[in-house]
């Protein structure tokens, strides 16, 4: 015959156990303080503005360049001329 384990009685007894005392307040606050973002330095701020300004200037310059190129050339004909010697 199988030996019976009265798990319910064991669990009931286990419920009476007290957990060890913990005091994590100080450590939690330290971890949270370390996680907070560092303030951005003035030099970093300057580089950020420069990067933003150059990006802002690059986009209209690229668009303008595209339209100017199309207006002053005929890309399809240039390609045809470039490969004409192969066709011949």
């Amino acid at each position, binding site marked *: 015959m*199988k*030996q*019976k*384990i*009265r*798990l*319910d*009685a*064991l*669990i*009931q*007894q*286990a*419920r*009476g*156990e*007290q*957990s*060890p*005392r*913990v*005091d*994590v*307040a100080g*450590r*939690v*606050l330290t*971890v*949270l*303080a370390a*996680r907070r973002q560092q303030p951005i330095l003035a030099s970093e701020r300057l580089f950020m503005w420069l990067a933003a300004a150059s990006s802002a200037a690059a986009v209209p310059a690229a668009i303008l360049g595209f339209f100017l190129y199309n207006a002053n050339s005929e890309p399809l004909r240039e390609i045809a001329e470039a490969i004409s010697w192969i066709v011949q």
Partner: protein
Amino acid sequence: MRHGAINLAFAVDRTKNAPALDEADLEDARDSLEGDSEAYRRLVERHQAYVGQILWRFSRDRQVHEELVQDVFVEAYLNLNSYREEAPFAHWLARIATRVGYRYWKQTKRQRRRENFSFKDWDQLLAEPSERMDPSQAAALVHELLAQLPPRDRLVLTLRYLQELDVAEAARRTGWSKTMVKVQTWRALKKLQKIAARAGKEISLS
């Protein structure tokens, strides 16, 4: 939501018997959100024993236990804006603690499987009635036995039997449906019976 995943999003308890909110908790939670670290310290100090009690059932290693409690409060702070002040702060923390504990079990799952478990060590301990057993000793035995189960089964049995939660509360804690909690409990008990049967033992659990 992924099947079986614990959902951190706070389920609002709209039952008629919803427990009263603690004004001090609400005030400190609001102040913490505005960056008052002393307010958060008060919240941690007020609830760390409760969270510690929950997590002691997930790890009986003192160092790991402290780390888990710490993780709960760090996670709680980072999600503080999702606390909707419609149920006690402690309930919200209990859900996070369950999630942290469950995650710990999943992370250490492989390691536990390598450990050899034997009922032989139990025989001597179980010779005396459980009622006379030291609660810590009884808890260690239960912990050791439940550790043989996969994390999901272990979680549901821990919540239902060790923490004495009803199906509805266990469902709230895990983010599972009530049906899922019932099915998972049934499956977990079956697995436990199988483990015991392999050692020529039978487990009685009402």
